[in-house]
C-alpha cells in the first residue's frame, strides 16, 4: 500500500496547518470512485477549534458525503495536523477512524523539528494502524 499525491496538495496541507496553528487543521481529498487517486482538495473547518482535537462539522460532513455521491467520487485522503506531537495516529485517531478505504494523512508542525514538517500516511482498519509509503509527484 502507498499513497501517491501531488506536491501541490502536500504544500497546501502544510500551508493550512501553519495558518491554523496552534489549532489542528483538517480536510479531505476526493478522487473519482475506484481510482484511489486524490484529485480534489477540500480543506474543512475544525469544528473543535482545538490544538488537541479535530472534528469535521456535522453539517459540513453531510454536505461532503452528498457531494461525493453526486459526483461519483470517493474520499481518498482524510488529513489533519498534530501541533505538538509526531505525525502518528493518536489513540483517539484510531478509535474514531471510520473510513477503512481512506488514507489517513498526518502532518506535524511541532516546534522541535521546525522548519521541517513531517508528512506521513496510514491505513487505520479495525483499530490497526499500518504506515504506508508516500510518493510525491511534481
Amino acid at each position: 500500500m502507498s499513497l501517491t499525491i501531488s506536491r501541490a496538495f502536500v504544500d497546501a496541507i502544510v500551508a493550512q496547518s501553519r495558518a491554523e496553528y496552534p489549532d489542528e487543521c483538517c480536510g479531505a481529498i476526493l478522487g473519482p470512485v475506484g481510482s484511489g487517486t486524490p484529485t480534489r482538495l477540500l480543506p474543512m473547518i475544525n469544528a473543535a477549534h482545538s490544538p488537541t482535537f479535530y472534528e469535521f462539522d456535522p453539517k459540513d460532513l453531510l454536505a461532503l458525503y452528498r457531494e461525493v455521491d453526486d459526483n461519483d467520487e470517493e474520499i481518498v485522503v482524510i488529513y489533519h495536523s498534530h501541533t505538538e506531537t509526531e505525525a502518528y495516529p493518536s489513540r483517539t485517531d484510531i478509535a474514531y477512524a471510520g473510513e477503512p478505504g481512506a488514507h489517513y494523512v498526518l502532518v506535524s508542525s511541532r516546534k522541535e523539528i521546525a522548519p521541517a514538517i513531517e508528512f506521513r500516511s496510514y491505513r487505520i482498519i479495525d483499530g490497526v494502524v499500518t504506515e504506508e509509503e508516500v510518493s510525491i509527484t511534481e
Partner: protein
Amino acid sequence: MSIEVRIPTILRPFTKDQKAVVATGSTLTSLITDLDQQYPGIGDRLLENGALRRFINIYVNDEDVRFLGSLEAPIKDGDSVTILPAVAGG
C-alpha cells in the same frame, strides 16, 4: 411505512454490504430497534448506554438529529435517514 436508511462503509458488514436499507419507525429509537432486528449488532454501534454515540452522526433528511430531539426525533414515511461516523480525532 418505510424509511430509507443510508449506511456508511464501516457499518456495511452488518447489512451484507448494502449502501441503503429500508426500515420502519416513527421515532429514531424505534427505527434503530427495527434496524437492529433486521441487522443484529448494528444498534450497538449506534447507541451507548441508551444514548446516541457521541461520534456517530445521524441525519433525518438534511438535519442532524441532535437538533430534532436526538433519539426522540420524529420520522415519517418518505423521510431519508443518513448515518455517518464523525470524521474526528486528536
